[in-house]
């Protein structure tokens, strides 16, 4: 019988520690499928960051480097500059990338570092039990905004793709979501294109993935998907911001 579905080679044969219904696992799988399809596992270096995915170096079969909170783009810069033939990706959450690591992501993008960032926006700090993230929506209840995020007290959520799109060094930027099959397929295409942009030496590429955190949103997995669709997508419009027609 022909095999129609199997674990990508780039993903280790271990079970992941993520909560039921968490979409981090789907995103890992998409990255691994792309690594397989582009046949780059042997030269890919992944940079794990600090958040629920701090130890995703246990899940990928390529070489991995764990970075301090927010510093993955700087670490990735060092790895890539050391061996420019390698393919380097960072995997970062919204707290990691858009709060403590704002300087590092902006400047890696501005320098046009030939690395790829997979930015997972779940509108919350998952790992540290549900505090406000820079991407937390207005009125969203978190453990540090127990009365809901207010514009007056907490300011506005940051739209990372829009922010980085103004930088010339960032050549491919797209926002995707993993809430349904169609969007998951689009997400994979975007991640693949982002890696191809790096392989073609074009510059910095980033894919923002809207993701669920049922545990800290206080919702079951199905409700979490609905919440993402009804609240996150309207605020974080899906689509390509830059580099759609880039030849790779």
């Amino acid at each position, binding site marked *: 019988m022909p095999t129609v579905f199997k674990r990508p080679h780039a993903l280790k044969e271990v079970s992941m520690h993520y909560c039921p219904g968490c979409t981090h696992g789907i995103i890992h799988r998409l990255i691994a499928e792309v690594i397989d399809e582009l046949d780059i*596992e*042997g*030269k*890919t*270096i992944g*940079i*794990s960051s600090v958040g629920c995915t*701090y*130890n995703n*170096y*246990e899940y*990928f*079969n*390529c*070489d*991995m*480097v*764990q*970075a*301090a909170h927010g*510093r993955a783009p*700087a*670490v*990735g*810069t*060092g*790895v*890539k*500059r*050391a*061996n420019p033939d*390698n393919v380097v990706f960072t995997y970062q959450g919204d707290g990691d990338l858009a709060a403590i690591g704002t*300087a*590092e992501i*902006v*400047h890696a993008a501005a*320098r046009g570092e030939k690395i790829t960032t997979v930015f997972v926006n779940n509108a919350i700090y998952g790992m540290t039990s549900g505090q406000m993230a820079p991407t937390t929506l207005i009125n969203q209840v978190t453990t540090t905004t127990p009365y809901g995020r207010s514009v007056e007290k907490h300011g506005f959520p940051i739209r990372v793709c829009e922010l980085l799109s103004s930088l010339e060094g960032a050549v491919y930027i797209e926002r995707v979501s993993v809430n349904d099959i169609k969007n998951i397929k689009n997400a994979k295409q975007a991640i693949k294109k982002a890696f191809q942009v790096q392989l073609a030496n074009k510059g910095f590429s980033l894919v923002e993935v809207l993701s669920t955190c049922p545990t800290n949103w206080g919702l079951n997995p199905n409700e979490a998907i609905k919440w993402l669709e009804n609240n996150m997508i309207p605020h974080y419009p899906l689509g390509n911001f830059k580099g759609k027609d880039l030849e790779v």
Partner: protein
Amino acid sequence: MGEKILMKGNEVIGEAALRAGCKHYFGYPITPQTEIAHYMAKRMPMVGGTFVQAESEVAAINMVYGAASAGVRALTSSSSPGISLKQEGISYASCAELPAVIVNIVRCGPGLGGILPAQCDYFQAVKGGGHGDYKMVVLAPCSVQELYELTVEAFNIADKYRILVMIMGDGILGQMMEPVEFKDKEEIISVQKNWAASGTKMNRENNVITSIYIDPEKMEKHNLKLQEKYSRIASSEVKVETYNCENADIIVSAFGSVARIVKNVISMAEKEGIKVGLIRPITLWPFPESEFLKYADVPKAFLTVEMNAGQMFEDVKMAVNGRKKVYFHGRMGGMIPTQQDILDKIKEILKV
């Protein structure tokens, strides 16, 4: 030996790093060490190397973390306030056992302080300015020639032990021009970095560089491994210069540029019939305790002279371990101890 040329301390650091095979420099401008960056910016493209002006010292040390993870020799340099920002990366890289070299051309502090020379980052360098139980090898050269030799050696020590090595100088050393004699060929140890994250090429298990161990047993085991490494280094990498200590009336201890001032004091004192010895720690960590113990019974007292409020002073007291009284003379804020002040202090201690 090759030809002798006149060069500025900071530039010699850059040249020495290149000679040691370091082709990756990451830094952020700060006085009084910026000439290192200028030198690297000019030279790296000539040798096919990397020079990155980072967005901050935090980013620069994390770029070093990445480059060292990938298995290449990497350098960053800064001065005191910038070194404070690097402490996060220093702690992480120490835990991940990454070899790299960090230069601190110390300026006076605390705070933004001033740009003039000081030695007030001794504690931060040798006691661990970042979090956790870690050590860096800390080298304190006192001349431009030694700056060159120790910079090359720093890379060898880093690779040999998978450890961070800090070269600690001050504005005097960094800005000073002195003749330096480069070797025709450097001795560069070759180590197999089969732990590096440079791509599996599909012919080995994947390598992981990490500093996180959630399981307490594993974290303790890793700590024990680090401590074992530190004791190996402590027993084999101590460097110290001892001068005139036999029959000394007093032994002065100083490191870096201050040691050179003390050497002048030794001849001044000689003329007045006072015998002054010098113990100059070249490795501030590991500290040359046994050298102090060896001479503890010789002089009437010890004196440490530093450009700070008394930092190495504590380690000297610990090493002398109560066998003799240890005195301190120091200047701060970019002020430099004068020969006369040191001599007066010696006379006051010896009551002559």
